[in-house]
């Protein structure tokens, strides 16, 4: 009897600890508000900072015609599209990273693990080297070709990893992706090898990633793709929680596993393709951001996914700010900045896990 009483007391004490577990709704609101505020602040401040000082009052001074208003030109043409594309690409890559990590049940997966970016790079590379100059409307050939390359890579990996009407095999998915990555990388090197100097330089710059898009057009072109991906992402978080326990465990908790896996795979591939087409393969955002976010808010995907989206946007805008100001007037490619931060971080994660 006294055992029962002490058990009951222990449970009561324990449940006081449980009560300290904040309800998911409150956590979600606090997280989105916090990360949202940081992201908005970063996106507002970043266009004001740069190698040339500009004044916000002059930027919005309607009395000076736009043609003569250098501050407004720098703000609206050079910096704002760049900051916004940084935010869009950062958000897309970070969210895609979260989704791929849950789908593959592997915290070390990135948006580029399955070969999407290598496919995109190969497409872009071919257009650069062959000097193709077709364009659809305002869209130049390079982003179109990288989108095509990414789609082909996505299709190949999907076809390899999906048996008829059954759940995807995540190990086949990983192996197919890794193999495709090296295969495409070899082709990319070959194409670079046969290129002349100026083409090879352009190609190398593409591979480093670049957010200097120079106008709003590429941004407007990428926006619908990213929007579709994020609409799909919005339906995924609780399924991703279940999938990270394994496909069978997810199924027995009521997840339509085949559907959820396909949706996750295609939406994350789409977001990655759009991001890479806009700015080239900017590495490490998709792994650094989700892990930093998990350290801050825990691992529940219903919180991690929106938080990573917001934080990814802020992270890439800040990295790009560093890229264009640290050694001004020389610009460091933004992919180099994220890799310099991301590489050591990734290794630290690896060591910490083992």
């Amino acid at each position, binding site marked *: 009897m006294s055992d029962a009483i002490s*058990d009951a007391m*222990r*449970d009561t*004490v*324990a*449940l006081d*600890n*449980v009560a*300290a*577990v904040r*309800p*998911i*709704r409150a956590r*979600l609101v606090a997280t989105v508000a916090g990360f949202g505020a940081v992201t908005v602040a970063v996106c507002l401040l970043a266009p004001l900072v740069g190698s040339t000082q500009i004044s916000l009052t002059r930027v919005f001074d309607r009395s000076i015609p736009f043609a003569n208003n250098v501050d407004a030109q720098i703000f609206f043409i050079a910096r704002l599209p760049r900051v916004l594309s940084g935010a869009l690409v950062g958000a897309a890559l970070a969210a895609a990273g979260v989704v791929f*990590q*849950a789908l593959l*049940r*592997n*915290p070390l997966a990135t948006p580029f693990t399955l070969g999407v970016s290598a496919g995109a790079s190969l497409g872009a590379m071919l257009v650069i080297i062959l000097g193709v100059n077709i364009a659809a409307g305002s869209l130049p050939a390079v982003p179109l070709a990288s989108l095509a390359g990414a789609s082909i890579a996505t299709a190949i990996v999907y076809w390899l990893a999906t*048996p*008829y*009407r*059954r759940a995807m095999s995540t190990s086949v998915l990983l192996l197919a992706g890794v193999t495709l990555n090296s295969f495409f990388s070899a082709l990319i090197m070959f194409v670079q090898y046969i290129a002349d100097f100026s083409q090879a330089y352009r190609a190398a710059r593409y591979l480093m990633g670049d957010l200097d898009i120079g106008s709003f057009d590429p941004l407007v072109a990428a926006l619908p793709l990213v929007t579709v991906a994020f609409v799909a992402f919005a*339906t995924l978080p*609780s399924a991703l*929680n*279940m999938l*990270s*326990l*394994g496909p*069978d*465990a997810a*199924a*027995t*908790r*009521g*997840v*339509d*596993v085949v559907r959820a896996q396909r949706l996750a795979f295609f939406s994350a591939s789409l977001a990655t393709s759009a991001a890479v087409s806009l700015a080239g393969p900017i590495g490490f955002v998709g792994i650094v951001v989700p892990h930093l976010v*998990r350290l801050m808010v*825990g*691992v*529940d995907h*219903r919180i991690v996914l929106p938080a990573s989206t917001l934080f990814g946007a802020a992270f890439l805008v800040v990295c790009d700010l560093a890229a264009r100001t640290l050694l001004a007037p020389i610009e460091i490619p933004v992919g180099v900045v994220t890799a310099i931060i991301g590489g050591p971080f990734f290794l630290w994660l690896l060591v910490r896990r083992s």
Partner: protein
Amino acid sequence: MTLSATQLSYSYRQGPAKAGRYARKTGPAEAGHYAGDFALRDISVSVAPGSLTGLLGPNGCGKTTLLKLLSGVLKPELGSVRLGEREMRLLSARAVAQQIAVVPQETHPAFDFTVMEMVLMGRHPHLGAFQLEGPSDLAIARESLIATGTAHLAGRAYMTLSGGEKQRVVIASALAQKPKVLLLDEPTASLDLGYQLEIAALLKQLNRERGVTMVLATHDLNLAASVCDTLVLVREGRVLMQGPTNDVLTSATVQQLYGVIADVTFHERAGHMTVIPVRRQ
């Protein structure tokens, strides 16, 4: 609610499309040439409401496959599974999960969830598409934690728990699903003697007090003898025998099932049949 399987057959080697082709070529389940391909052949099992059924058989006999078919994770190629009056293949994963919960041998989450988060995942089939769990879900999770004696672990990271604690948390998560039927796949396989007895007592208690129907696949004959009221013996993908534990569990059936000569006697102090393996046949 009765969970029943009728003339189930399943093979891992062929996808459904190919199975259809083979079936046409060689006739259903009697597929002589492909007989060896079937993990389960022509299995019929009925699990009565409120019963605690043990699923026994040697490695690779199809126990896990049968559990996956009963839980709807796998779809049978031939035959059908019925949950009460309804055909399982016509139910959505969500509808099935509202009735049936599963405790696998081991659960390895890819991320560092807390115990409370793990248990709350059991509420998933009862939530709408964008619905977050509310106070009533939290209350059910707490109750499940208390029922499995894991309330003091609620704030801990699941991955830092011992094997026995993990298994109890997974059972709590399954209870939070408020299932009518609980399927367990060797839940004590990796646990030491103390935890084995603890889990056995827990299952028995949940079965008696809450009327949860349970199907327990296990290699532990003594565990099965101590908790199960009904046994189903599976050998080479077929049902060898099914019936009340005390009738089914005999030296003869153990020998038939495992090829092991064993003493099966009623143990007064334990209060159930016990199996002492003597030697391989």
